[in-house]
């Protein structure tokens, strides 16, 4: 038995949270250092995992399996080339969130950090679980800490947003629970590896696909069930928004790859037009909505919906470029949206306003901030040389193979994306310094500077040199698409 490295990745933040629980809540520095320490250790473990990960194998690696509920469910975790990147994204963003609480969280710091660490456990668990029931536990368990993060530390309309977030997500996922149990009775197991081998009877696939879709669509979020996201983002504290945008939304995208497409190839093929249509609506419609926002966080929230529309578009092309693009776009959006929310958090902490009209001319008083925000804006709109470009480019390439029309409409989204992001940047950073309050504003402090610089560097570095990511997932994606095509061909042969 090897060292259970994945389980320790999952458990370590919880142990840290338990440790925090026993620290006196007045000892603020102690609390911060413990949680930061735990999350950085976790990051280092995940990097170590990445280093010893075999990139040339598409098998699940570091698999751990033990009996959990007798004769029913096994606790099974493991990673492949796709999931490991999401784990690293999670462990990378979490320490930054913990660093950022310095200025934004004033009361109940201990509880906040406990919630963040529990969240990390659950998020890593989602990306590693190789059993449907285990996946559901982690996926749904995230509701509790996130509900509290929005509700306790949020803005003025936090109660409304927290309830909306909770109920929307719960409603989506109960149908997934029914589907998970049904799969157990149809196929006799909920082990994902086994299910990949066995396949699921095509006659059930459409309904099961829809049940999973209802959950992932709410979480992604796809049009028309995206309305909880802007509310949740606007009211959540900075760290909460970052976790939400950078990682929670990716759980759904990951779920589409691992479960919707992986388990139900026939149904996925059947529903491609449906996905394309709502992805396109998400891209175009939410981009237009984003143009009209006067609240910075809302604008970025709507842009997230649009970017996730690209992701679903890419994943459902079932081409090497499209799927790789979808994965890359998720990682890239994880970094970029985290950076944008951190940036909004920086100015919000100083002025307590998120309205775009209250800003303008920031470049005169906050030069460092303005430079970094420029990088994030360009990353978000997909300028070549940033991570955003690679994702969108691959997705559009994959889509062109499938349908010229869809790709052409989606390309419009890129233009709209540039429009709202640049306009936002222009209104916030350039122009006359009209608001007198802004005169006294101070530029980034050391912590903020280091968070934002780290994010900016990774956006540019991986924008020029995406190989570390693409090498990791390319074998897995190739195998993923081959298996998908095999299963589809088998099905078509049987039906002829």
């Amino acid at each position, binding site marked *: 038995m090897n060292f259970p490295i994945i389980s320790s990745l999952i458990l370590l933040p919880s142990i840290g949270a338990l440790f925090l629980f026993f620290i006196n809540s007045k000892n603020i520095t102690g609390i911060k250092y413990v949680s930061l320490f735990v999350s950085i250790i976790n990051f280092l473990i995940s990097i170590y995992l990445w280093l010893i990960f075999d990139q040339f194998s598409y098998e699940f690696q570091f698999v751990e399996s033990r009996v*959990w*509920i*007798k004769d029913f469910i096994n606790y099974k975790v493991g990673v492949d080339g796709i999931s490991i990147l999401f784990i690293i994204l999670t462990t990378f963003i979490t320490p930054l969130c913990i660093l950022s609480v310095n200025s934004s969280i004033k009361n109940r710091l201990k509880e906040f950090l406990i919630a963040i660490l529990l969240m990390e456990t659950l998020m890593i668990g989602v990306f590693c679980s190789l059993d449907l*029931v285990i996946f*559901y*536990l982690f996926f*749904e*368990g995230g*509701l*509790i800490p996130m*509900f*509290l993060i929005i*509700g*306790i530390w949020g803005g003025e309309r*936090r*109660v409304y947003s*927290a*309830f909306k977030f*909770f*109920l929307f997500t*719960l*409603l989506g996922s*109960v*149908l997934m*629970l*029914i589907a998970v*149990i*049904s799969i*157990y*009775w149809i196929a006799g197991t909920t082990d994902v590896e086994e299910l990949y081998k066995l396949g699921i009877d095509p006659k059930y696939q459409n309904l099961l696909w829809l049940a999973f879709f209802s959950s992932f669509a709410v979480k992604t979020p796809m049009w028309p069930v995206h309305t909880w996201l802007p509310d949740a983002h606007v009211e959540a504290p900075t760290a909460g928004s970052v976790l939400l945008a950078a990682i929670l939304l990716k759980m759904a995208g990951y779920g589409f790859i691992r479960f919707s497409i992986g388990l139900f190839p026939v149904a996925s093929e059947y529903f491609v037009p449906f996905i394309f249509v709502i992805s396109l609506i998400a891209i175009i419609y939410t981009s237009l909505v984003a143009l009209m926002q006067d609240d910075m966080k809302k604008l970025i929230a709507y842009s997230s919906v649009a970017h996730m529309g690209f992701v679903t578009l890419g994943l459902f092309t079932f081409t090497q470029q499209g799927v790789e693009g979808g994965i890359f776009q998720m990682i890239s959006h994880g970094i970029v949206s985290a950076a944008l929310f951190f940036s909004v958090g920086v100015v919000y902490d100083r002025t307590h306003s998120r309205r775009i009209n209250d800003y303008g001319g920031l470049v005169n008083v906050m030069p460092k901030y303005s430079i970094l925000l420029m990088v994030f804006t360009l990353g978000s709109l997909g300028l070549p040389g940033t991570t955003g470009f690679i994702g969108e480019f691959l997705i559009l390439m994959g889509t062109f193979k499938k349908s010229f029309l869809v790709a052409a409409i989606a390309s419009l989204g890129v233009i709209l994306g540039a429009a709202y992001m640049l306009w936002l940047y222009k209104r916030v950073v350039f122009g006359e310094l009209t608001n007198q309050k802004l005169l006294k504003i101070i530029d980034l402090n050391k912590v903020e500077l280091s968070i934002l610089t780290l994010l900016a560097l990774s956006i540019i570095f991986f924008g020029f040199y995406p190989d570390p990511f693409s090498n990791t997932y390319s074998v897995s994606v190739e195998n993923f698409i081959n298996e998908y095509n095999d299963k589809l061909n088998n099905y078509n042969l049987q039906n002829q």
Partner: protein
Amino acid sequence: MINLFYISTEIFLSLSILILLLIGVFKNKSELFIYNFTCIILLVGLAINIKLNPQSPIDLFNNSYKIDYFTTLIKSVILISAFLVMLCSLNYVKQNDILKIEYPILILSSILGMLVMVSSNDLIVFYVGLELQSLALYVLAAFKRDNILSSESGLKYFILSALSSGLLLYGCSLIYGFSSSTNFDLIYQNSESIEYGIIFGIVFILVGLAFKITAVPFHMWAPDVYDGSPTSVTVIFAILPKIAALTVFINFLYGPFLEMFDQWQAVIIFLSIGSMVFGAVAAIGQKKLKRLIAYSSISHMGFALAGLSVGTNEGIQNSIIYLMIYLIMNIAFFCCLFMLKRENQYFDKVEDLSGLSKNHPLLSLSLMIILFSLAGIPPLAGFFAKFYIFTAVIEQSMYFLAIVGLLSTVIAAFYYIRLIKVMYFDEQKEKYDLNHSIGLKMILVISSTIILIYFINPNIINNFVLDITLI
């Protein structure tokens, strides 16, 4: 003689009741002594009961009384939960001036009635047990006799319960008329062909039992009685009669009338869906915690019934697991209610929870865990309870029931998280007292810890029910 040996638990409880009555009559100011002694009696009864667990099923008194693993398990659960209830409500009973000698003795007699109900294998024996249980509970509901709400709830419970007992008796007589026996085994043999008389009888008996477990549409009494009775009695209402009545449901439906599964399944599904949906919707507007938990228990009973409607051993086992987790969550919830007191006055409105998390972080943390668990959010115990039920339901392809049930959990989640919102997001109020008894604190800590860490090894509770095979 050998017959009497196997019912030592019941005999022991009956003798204790008589002795305690005598002590109460002849000794002055013996209330507290009797109360404490009752707790010990419950524990001794539990020990006897576990010791007696028979290897193979035993039929006593011409097959009218049955003792096997299933009844022993349920009796143990009843005795343990009665003990916990007594332990956690001691302070409440003292401070509300309802600590009279009759109080523990009445509880003990209703427990005795429940034990008889659980073991009964004959309609007459079953009815005797049921009435013993109910009569004691009528008095308990009205125990705070100077309080108008308590008297009202006792009266309401008495009248409606008498009506349902009447229906139940009528059902028994119909069954007797058409199968010429009151014994479950003989009824099974005599009712091979499906006769409408027997089906009518089953329906009437189900109505009577549904009344006891507050299944919709026989739930009207529950909110008023829960609200009016003293909280220490409400917790009994919320837990004990439901375990007993649900066990009778199982014994009754899966015993003599197993062959008529197709006939009664529709009734159970109807009761189940009605309870789940109504319990979830009606609780939303409630302002008092006791009324809210009444509706919540209505909807929880709906889930337990859903497990019974399946017609498999897994369904029954999962219903029992559901009941066990339900009772842990309810005891824990009521422990929290007992802690909401200031200068000997107890509070039970939703708004009294306002800002609890600032003044009492640990209490509100436990209450939050309990509420999320009641709402069925993973990874807490309440989720697994529902998960098992729906596993059994979906095995039989009853998708409609599963979808309605799960959607009703979403509706129900709304009012549970509303309480969490009040505790965590609202402004704080005055502090509550902290001088709680150690028993109360222990029960709260242990039960909320069980709820929280149940997921680490679910087999511990599941193993208890694996041996229950009725079909």
